[in-house]
């Protein structure tokens, strides 16, 4: 493993049904994640994904790569733009994990998530145990 290696990448499609399922499973029922009228009323272009849904997709990218979730030591994300999820077709989010630094058995992984060409996270990093 070397600095600059892309260790995982994938594209996920987020549809309204995913946000409804996530709301139920997580207990986050903020209507901006399922009610278009409320979302627009508060100045959003449409329903937006839970930030935590996007972070969960990055988490999945990491744990699929790591195999054992115990190898994830820290994981933080800044949500820089909303993922807008239209009723028809949903939203595509491109995810990538790149090795940013290596210190013994611990690597820092730089994460990106992009929707419609716009980065939806910033300063997204994880530290992982590599052995």
């Amino acid at each position, binding site marked *: 493993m070397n600095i600059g290696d892309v260790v995982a990448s994938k594209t*996920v499609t987020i549809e309204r049904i*995913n946000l409804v*399922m*996530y709301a*139920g*499973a*997580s*207990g*986050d029922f*903020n*209507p*901006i994640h399922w009610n278009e009228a*409320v979302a627009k*009323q*508060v*100045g959003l272009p449409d329903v*937006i994904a*839970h*930030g*935590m*849904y996007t*972070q*969960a*997709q990055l*988490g*999945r990218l*990491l*744990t*699929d790569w790591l*195999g*054992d*979730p*115990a190898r*994830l*030591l*820290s*994981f*933080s*994300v*800044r*949500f820089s733009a*909303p993922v807008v999820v239209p009723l028809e077709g949903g939203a595509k989010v491109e995810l990538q994990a790149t090795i940013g630094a290596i210190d013994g058995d611990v690597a820092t992984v730089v994460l990106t998530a992009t929707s419609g060409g716009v980065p939806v996270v910033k*300063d997204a990093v994880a530290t992982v145990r590599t052995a």
Partner: protein
Amino acid sequence: MALNPDFIGKRYPDTDPYLIGREKVREFATAIGDFSPVFHDVVAAAALGYSDLPAPPTFAFSLTMKAMAAAMFDPELGLNYALVVHGEQGFEYERPLVAGDEVVVKSYIADVDTRGRNEFLTTAADVVTLGGDLVVKTRSIIVSRGTAA
């Protein structure tokens, strides 16, 4: 209405104990589209040394969000829930949460800050077993859009 900066450092009572259930872990993993055996199959989890299913890494937020709600719905703080979006979220893990863990969340308001027309509420929340062992430390920033004075 602007957020009240006097709330920095304010602690909220520990949440009620939460027993992480195996089916809740499966439900959460399914909701995020994660069908990896480690989050669904106790035999696969046992092969990695877990006593039951470990939860995906962001599951902890479902617990800390409840603690955060105490702050978010505190009328004295002055947050309008409809104008709130999630700004940042961080986790520092001692280990994954595992089905069978019974935990409480200890939280406090770490910061209240204004940048431009937006206000930022930072909460810190630790997920701790009933035996007192820290499992995961979390830090959340929520943004109240356009509410700064």
